[in-house]
C-alpha cells in the first residue's frame, strides 16, 4: 500500500507544506537565535525536513544519504565543535544591530530576484501530470549505484558511443571524491591534533611532570628479591637462645 503512489493529488501538497514550513521555520530559527547550541539543534531539524522534501521529490536514496551523512555525520561534527568551543561567554554572541539592517536589505533583494526567477520560467510553473509509472520509477536505488560505477542505466535508450563503452557514468568523480575525502580526513586529523605535547616543556602542564616523575623513578629491582628465609621471626636483641637454630 504505497501511500504516496496512489493518493497522489492531495498527499504530496500536504507533506510538502509541512516539510517546507519546518525547513524554513527552523532556518529562521538558526538565523535569529543567539545561543549557538540552539542554532545547531534548529539546523538539525531544518536539514531533517529538507531530507523529507528529498523523499517527496522521489530522490529516496539521496534523502536517506542526507539523513545519514549530513545530519548524522556532519552536524554531529559541528555539535562536537560547538561543545568544545562554546564556553561561558561564547555561547550567546549577539550581532550588532546595524549588521542586521544591512543583511536584511541585501538578503531581501537577493530573495526577490531568486523567487522571480523560480516562478518566471513557464515550464517550471505548469503542474505536470504525475502518474503511477513515474512515481514507482524512482523507487529504485540500483540505477544510482550503477550510475556511480559508470553504467548509466536510465539513458540506455540513446545508446551513444559514450554509453556503449560504459564511460557515461560518474566513475571518475566518484574516485576523485573518495581520494578527496581521504586527504581531508588526514589533514583535519593532523591539524586538530592536541598540541599539548609541543608546549609540554613548561613545567605547569601535568604531562611534563608525569614524564619527569617516570624518569627519575625507575624501580631498581630488590637486590635480595629472593627472600626465602624460613625460620620464625624473632627479636634481633634476644640472646642467641640455643633452640632457635633451624
Amino acid at each position, binding site marked *: *500500500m504505497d501511500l504516496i503512489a*496512489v493518493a497522489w493529488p492531495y498527499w504530496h501538497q500536504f507533506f510538502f507544506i509541512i516539510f517546507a514550513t519546518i525547513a524554513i521555520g527552523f532556518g529562521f530559527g538558526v538565523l535569529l537565535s543567539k545561543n549557538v547550541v540552539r542554532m545547531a539543534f534548529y539546523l538539525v531539524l531544518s536539514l531533517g525536513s529538507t531530507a523529507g522534501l528529498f523523499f517527496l521529490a522521489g530522490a*529516496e536514496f539521496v534523502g*536517506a544519504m542526507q539523513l*545519514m551523512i549530513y545530519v548524522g555525520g556532519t552536524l554531529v561534527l559541528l555539535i*562536537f565543535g560547538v*561543545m568544545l568551543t562554546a564556553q561561558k561567554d561564547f555561547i550567546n554572541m549577539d550581532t550588532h544591530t546595524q549588521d542586521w539592517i544591512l543583511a536584511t536589505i541585501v538578503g531581501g533583494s537577493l530573495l526577490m530576484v531568486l523567487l522571480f526567477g523560480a516562478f518566471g520560467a513557464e515550464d517550471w510553473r505548469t503542474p505536470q501530470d504525475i502518474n503511477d509509472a513515474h512515481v*514507482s520509477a524512482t523507487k529504485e536505488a*540500483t540505477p544510482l549505484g550503477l550510475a556511480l560505477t559508470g553504467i548509466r542505466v536510465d539513458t540506455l*535508450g540513446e545508446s551513444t558511443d559514450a554509453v556503449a563503452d560504459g564511460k557515461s557514468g560518474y566513475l571518475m568523480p566518484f574516485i576523485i571524491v573518495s581520494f578527496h575525502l581521504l586527504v581531508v580526513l588526514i589533514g583535519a586529523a593532523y591539524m586538530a591534533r592536541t598540541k599539548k605535547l609541543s608546549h609540554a616543556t613548561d613545567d605547569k602542564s601535568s604531562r611534563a611532570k608525569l614524564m619527569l616523575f617516570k624518569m627519575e623513578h625507575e624501580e631498581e629491582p630488590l637486590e635480595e628479591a629472593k627472600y626465602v628465609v624460613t625460620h620464625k621471626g624473632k627479636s634481633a636483641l634476644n640472646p642467641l637462645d640455643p633452640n632457635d637454630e633451624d
Partner: protein
Amino acid sequence: MADFINNIFGIGDSWVGYLIAALIAAVLILHVVAVGALLFIWMERKISGRIQDRLGPTRVGGKYGWLQTLADGIKLIAKEDITPDLADRFLFKIAPYVGLAASYAAFIALPFADGVVAQHVNTAVFFVLAVLGLEVFSVILAGYASGSKWSLFGAMREAAQVVSYEVPLGMCVVVPVMICGTMNLTTIGNMQAGLFTNWLVFNDPFTFLTAIIYFTCATAGVNRAPFDLAEAESELVAGFHTEYSGLRWSLFFMAEYSSMFVVSALASILFFGGSHGPIPVGQWIGETIGGTWGLNISRIIGVGNLLLKGLIGVTVMMWIRWTFPRLRIDQVMTMCLKYCVPLAALGFIGATTWQYLDLPTANSLVGNPRYEKHEMWTEGVEVTPAADASPASGIPDPEPHQEDKTANADSVTVKTLPVSVVKGGER
C-alpha cells in the same frame, strides 16, 4: 491493508482508507515499542536475577512479578521530574523526545514479515541506519542541557563512542546488501526463505564473521553491555541522564530498549533469515491452505519468527551485560578502530571475493539454492515493465519490481520474486 479498509467502508480508493491504514500501522509499532520496553525491563530483571542465582521480582502482579515494570512505570510517572536551574530549559525537555523519535522512526522501514511493513522503503537498510544515527543528538543535547560539566563530559564520551561505532556498523551492513543485491529489507528477508542453510549467516565464513562484528558494534552503538560508558557509576563521571528523573528518564530507557530491539531485529533480518524460521513451516502452511487465509497465517507466523529472533538478540545483549565488567573509554575506542573496522573490512572483502569467485555457499551445498535476484542490465535491452509479471492473486503487489521482470535472453532463469509466500519458488 488500505484496500481492505477501503472495501470495508466501500469508499473506493479514497485517501481516508490510507489515513486509517497509516494510523493502524503507527499504533501497532507504538505497541511494539511500548510493550517491548515493558517486557524488556521485566526480562532484564528476571535474566539478571537468573544469572546472579536469585529470583528477580516475584511479588508484584502474580508469581513471576509480571507487573513489576508497570509498577515502575507508575512510580516514574508519579515522580516529579525536575529541571536543574542551570539547565538550558528547552533543550533539556526536548532531548528524550528526540531519542525516542529516532529509535521509533527506525520501525517504519522494519519488515516484520513478508508484506507486513509500515512503509515500504526501498533503501530500508540505509534508512534504519540513518535514523539510528540521529540518536546521538539526544545524548549530546541531554549532556549539554543538564548544565553540569560531569554530564557534558559523559555525553561527549558516549557520543564519540556511538559515532565511531557507526563506521564498522555501516560496513557490516553492506555485506548482506551486497549478497542480496538490494537494500530492501523485505527482499533480503525473502531471499533467506527455506531451510536455515539459506540464512546469510551460514552463507560463507566471511558473512559469519560479519554477523559477529555486526552484533558487537550494534551493542556498542546502542551503548549496552561492556560499552555502557554513559552510566559508568564506578567512574567519576556519572553520565548524561543523571539530571533526569521521572517520566523523562523513563523515556530515555524506552528509547534505549526500543533501539536495542531494532538493532537485534535488523541483525535477524540481515543475517538470520528475518521472518523465516529454520524450517519453512510458514511456507508449507501457506501453500497447503492457499489463498488469502494461507497468506495471512504464514505472515502471522513470520511476525512471530521475527519477534522471537529479536527477543533472542535482546536476551543475548542482556546476558552479556550481566557477565562482563565495563571497558575503559580508550579500550572501547581502540577496539573500534583496531578490531571492528579492520575485521568488518576483511568480512566485506572476503564476502565480495567469495561472491565473485562463486565459491560454494551453504545453500548451494544443501541443494536448496536461494532464488536468484540479480537483475541483468545488459546493453541495448529495452527495459519495459514486461507483461509477464506474475499477477499476484488479488493482492496488490507490494512492490512493482520492474527489475526482476526483465526478459533477458541469456542463461540465468530469473525466477520472479515470490511476492507472496503462497506461490513459493518453484525450486
